[in-house]
């Protein structure tokens, strides 16, 4: 297809041709084109179907405010719906398709909706789908779901990468139109550190689209010279393709840079970068957006904003039509006719609303054919340029709830009170609607902001531009027009819908938006909000400022979720922590499980083992029979030192710690301030003033945080210092009857006999001939057991050394599953039992909580409700039929009781198959459990479809007297 509508001039590189595909049709454009300008150059008018009525639609604007030309870009996994053809830079091989139609774009099967329009007016959802009720799930919802939305997602994972970036500057200038460039020149010359950001791929804004002159040269040339001067300044950073989408607290701005969206191949670079900009001051020079006029059938392909027509003709060398008419209420619109004539395009009519002439109706289903005027004639044309005036782009000024104020002289809202602190607004965004005024004000703002920021250089002179007449005579819609007049093209909201909203009582602007969907979706009503507001104002007999204004939230333009996620996707969502023995474990067949950020070995598979149970049963049995080794580095470790360390611990733990002797370890139970059990672990006293605490893996971070809170905020003058050493020490459990014999080979000159180093002893020592270590005689398994810690850098060597030393005892490594089996057999509580709802009393540890001191949580743990005799107690369970495996989560019922919550007796928290006992064992909370030893209850699990009888027993399934661990 030839570029039938390509005309002379413009900022495109005609020396190169770019091939692209539109709905499968091959076309060509040039570097410098957008997809929209290339489509126009190729004579394409129809580009999509409207949201509700599936009306044929064309390109409406030349910027990010585009409501109509939403297309699907690229293919396969990279497919992206709802991209605006007006901002997509053309590249070689670009493939785009239209969206929101069934069948072809030309013959959309859903177009029947347009014939049903009178049933689909504002609020039809709320009225139509109310009855019969049964129809909702089966009929209405599936149909609505199938019809809703615009483009389609690929359904595949996004293959592109996104990044986050951080930048600091003195002054952020948002928008690089004439005002932004003038301000950047002033501030840059003064020496301030400036970032100038613009969403377009070429800076200059309207200067590229108009035929204005600045400093005596064509505007586009002046802009190019300004960009060249700014590029040469070390203190200025120019960011094209960068949308500043939000203003956040304390001078932080969010910006999205489209780094490789304009390239066929990203070549390994991120597709987009989400920038966080830290600014001292910000200057908003975002310009203004043109708005439309409401008249009959004003949505046909070929009807376009007048400013967009000028942009296509002047900047892109593409003619939106061969015979064009202009419908305007201002001087600015009239310039369109002059620019078109200068390009040799026929101007069939100029309809000036200020003279009482209007366009009443239009004809042309898939492309404009003619317009009918209020003065009578019907004029055949293929493009109509419409200008209803310009609205300052105040969006970012509203992000801190600033409310724009109405200015009659420009018939638009300008920034009012409540700007984000540090923000200044200049140029058209601030209501300086002529080029001369915008340049002047922006230069002044740039210079004074730079000077306020301490820059001392010479800002130079303000550029001079033509001071054209800006005559804003409000004219919103043609009241005499009979056919529907569109207000919001993207959401198919007509002037009738706005009036209906008023009639039905939805008169506040926020209600208007929700009831009619005016101003929703990707364009957020950039071209339509004011028009809707004006019609509502008229219907209410009020002025526009009396009617109100919608304010804007971030983002200014849509930002892909992928950009917010950045690199934090999949495995990179959070850090992965590896234990010191990870590589050893990997070499030895470990299967890993995520516990928080950690990867822990859950079992070590040996050849011949068919399933995980084979490995776990073997490991657990080997510990009880001889000795096993488990990496327990993931437990939180906190080093506590100071003269008041013991006193501090005594206030943190619910049980006493003041008199813990040096060289001893004690189990400690922490409560939350509300008295609920929070965390447990062991704390060793290495010297009079030095303690080492372990926490659970899960609570390592928060326990440390809460202890710092207690240290700094509750007892600021206790002499105690804390440091987390979780990563500093590699720690291994060595458990089983042969653990002493194994460790005796490992430690240097230390008597490990029961007399010299009894249960709950601890010491600092050395291992393997001088490596510093800490040894604790503690047991999670119930066997004779130790934990030995070495500095983390020796962790891998320690694991290998322990395994080598253990060879003669058939030592096995064991993972988290066997660890779980051993602790359930022994009846030790873990995360399943400490679930944030249970008290010390529930755990059977009520007696531990000392009433003689004020520790965190003590006071509220004494509340009667937490100490009822009939309350839950942690007890053990075994199946009556030993061949059955117990189910965690099963609820207990007295035999014969109905299965309902009123008869609930508690629940099973943890279960495991005990290789030692040869049957399944469980732990759980049972009402008055401690008094029901030997009783039989039902363990009922409708989720797992299990209903069995279990016997209540001691939590200590093995060695209830604790002989083994003390041996």
């Amino acid at each position, binding site marked *: 297809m030839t570029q039938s509508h390509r005309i002379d001039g413009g900022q495109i590189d005609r020396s190169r041709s770019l091939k692209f595909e539109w709905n499968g049709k091959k076309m060509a454009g040039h570097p410098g084109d957008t997809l929209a300008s290339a489509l126009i150059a190729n004579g394409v008018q129809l580009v999509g179907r409207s949201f509700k009525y599936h009306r044929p639609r064309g390109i409406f604007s030349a910027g990010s405010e585009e409501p109509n030309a939403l297309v699907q870009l690229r293919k396969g996994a990279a497919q992206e719906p709802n991209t605006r053809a007006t901002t997509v830079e053309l590249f070689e091989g670009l493939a785009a398709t239209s969206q929101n139609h069934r069948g072809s774009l030309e013959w959309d099967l859903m177009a029947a909706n347009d014939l049903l329009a009178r049933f689909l007016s504002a609020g039809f959802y709320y009225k139509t789908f109310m009855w019969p009720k049964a129809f909702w799930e089966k009929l209405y919802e599936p149909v609505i779901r199938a019809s809703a939305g615009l483009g389609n997602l690929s359904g595949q994972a996004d293959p592109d990468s996104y990044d986050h970036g951080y930048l600091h500057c003195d002054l952020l200038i948002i928008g690089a139109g004439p005002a932004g460039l003038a301000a950047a020149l002033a501030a840059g010359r003064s020496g301030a550190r400036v970032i100038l950001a613009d969403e377009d791929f070429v800076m200059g804004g309207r200067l590229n689209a108009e035929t204005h002159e600045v400093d005596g040269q064509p505007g586009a040339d002046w802009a190019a010279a300004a960009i060249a001067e700014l590029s040469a300044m070390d203190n200025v950073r120019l960011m094209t393709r960068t949308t500043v989408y939000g203003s*956040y*607290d*304390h*001078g*932080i701005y969010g910006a999205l840079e489209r780094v490789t969206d304009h390239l066929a191949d990203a070549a390994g670079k991120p597709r987009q970068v989400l920038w966080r900009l*830290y600014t001292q001051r910000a200057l908003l020079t975002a310009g203004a957006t043109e708005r439309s006029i409401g008249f009959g059938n004003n949505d046909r392909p070929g009807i376009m904003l007048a400013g967009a027509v000028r942009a296509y003709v002047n900047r892109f060398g593409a003619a939106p039509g061969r015979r064009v008419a202009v419908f305007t209420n201002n001087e600015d619109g009239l310039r369109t006719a002059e620019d078109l004539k200068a390009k040799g395009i026929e101007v069939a009519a100029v309809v000036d609303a200020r003279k009482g002439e209007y366009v009443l109706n239009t004809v042309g289903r898939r492309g404009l054919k003619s317009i009918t005027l209020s003065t009578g004639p019907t004029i055949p044309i293929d493009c109509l340029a419409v200008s209803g005036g310009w609205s300052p782009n105040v969006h970012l000024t509203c992000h*801190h709830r600033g409310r724009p104020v109405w200015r009659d002289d420009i018939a638009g809202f300008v920034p009012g009170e409540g700007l984000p*602190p540090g923000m200044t607004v200049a140029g058209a965004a601030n209501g300086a609607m002529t080029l001369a005024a915008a340049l002047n004000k922006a230069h002044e703002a740039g210079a004074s902001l730079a000077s306020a920021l301490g820059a001392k250089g010479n800002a130079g002179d303000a550029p001079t531009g033509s001071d054209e007449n800006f005559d804003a005579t409000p004219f919103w819609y043609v009241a005499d027009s009979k056919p529907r007049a569109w207000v919001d093209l993207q959401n198919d909201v007509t002037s009738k819908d706005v009036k209906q909203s008023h009639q039905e009582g939805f008169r506040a602007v926020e209600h208007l938006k929700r009831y009619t969907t005016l101003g929703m979706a990707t364009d957020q009503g950039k071209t339509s909000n004011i028009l809707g507001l004006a019609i509502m104002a008229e219907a209410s007999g009020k002025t526009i400022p009396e009617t109100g204004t919608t304010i804007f939230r971030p983002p200014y333009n849509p930002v892909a979720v992928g950009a917010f996620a950045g690199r934090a996707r999949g495995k990179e969502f959070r850090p992965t922590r590896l234990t010191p023995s990870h590589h050893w474990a990997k070499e030895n067949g470990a299967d890993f499980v995520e516990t928080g950020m950690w990867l822990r070995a859950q079992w070590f598979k040996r050849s011949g083992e068919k399933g995980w149970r084979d490995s776990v049963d073997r490991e657990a049995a080997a510990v009880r029979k001889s000795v096993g080794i488990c990496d327990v580095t993931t437990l939180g470790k906190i080093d506590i030192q100071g003269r008041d360390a013991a006193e501090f611990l005594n206030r943190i733990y619910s049980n006493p710690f003041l008199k813990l002797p040096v060289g001893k370890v004690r189990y400690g139970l922490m409560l939350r*301030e*509300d008295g609920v059990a929070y965390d447990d672990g062991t704390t060793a006293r290495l010297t009079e003033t030095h303690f080492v605490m372990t926490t659970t893996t899960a609570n390592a*971070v928060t326990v440390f*945080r809460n202890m*710092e*809170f207690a240290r*700094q*905020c*509750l*007892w*600021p*003058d*206790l002499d105690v210092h804390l440091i987390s050493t979780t990563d500093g020490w590699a720690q291994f459990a060595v458990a089983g009857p042969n653990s002493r014999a194994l460790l005796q080979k490992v430690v240097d000159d230390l008597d490990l006999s029961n007399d010299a180093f009894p249960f709950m002893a601890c010491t600092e020592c050395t291992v393997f001939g001088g490596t510093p270590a800490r040894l604790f005689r503690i047991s999670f398994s119930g066997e004779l057991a130790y934990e030995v810690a070495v500095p983390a850098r020796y962790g891998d060597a320690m694991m290998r050394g322990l395994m080598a030393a253990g060879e003669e005892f058939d030592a096995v490594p064991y993972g988290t599953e066997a660890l779980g089996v051993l602790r359930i057999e022994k009846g030790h509580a873990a995360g399943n039992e400490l679930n944030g709802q249970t008290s010390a009393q529930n755990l059977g540890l009520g007696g531990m909580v000392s009433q003689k*001191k*004020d*520790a965190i949580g*003590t*006071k*509220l743990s004494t*509340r009667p409700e937490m100490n009822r005799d009939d309350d839950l107690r942690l007890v053990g369970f075994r199946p009556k039929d030993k061949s059955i495996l117990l189910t965690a989560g099963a609820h207990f019922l007295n035999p014969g009781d109905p299965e309902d919550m009123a008869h609930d007796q508690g629940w099973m928290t943890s279960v495991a198959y005990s290789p030692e006992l040869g049957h399944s064992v469980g732990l759980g909370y049972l009402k008055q459990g401690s008094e029901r030893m030997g009783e039989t209850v039902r363990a009922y699990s409708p989720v797992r479809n299990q209903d069995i009888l279990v016997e209540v027993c001691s939590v200590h399934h093995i060695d209830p007297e604790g002989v083994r661990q003390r041996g």
Partner: protein
Amino acid sequence: MIIPHPLLGPRDAAEFVYKGDASLINRPDGMTASDDEMHDYAYLRDNPAGEHRELWYHEQGDRSWLVVTRNTMTHDITYVELARDVARASGRSR
């Protein structure tokens, strides 16, 4: 948000963990407090629209607990103190 740390200067709020009302510093003595006093301390917080003194923890930094005076309507931060100094000033030594 940016929190002006009294020791480290302006730091991004992302480095901090938020706890809440700074009245959490005023923990009653569990041995002498009434049930009601302890209940109020554990459960009741003011939720002002406007100036609010609140606790922030510089977890990704120097681990200071700070008392930040922040306007909940505007996010203006008008004053930042080390929580330890606040605790001492309110008589929490020893």
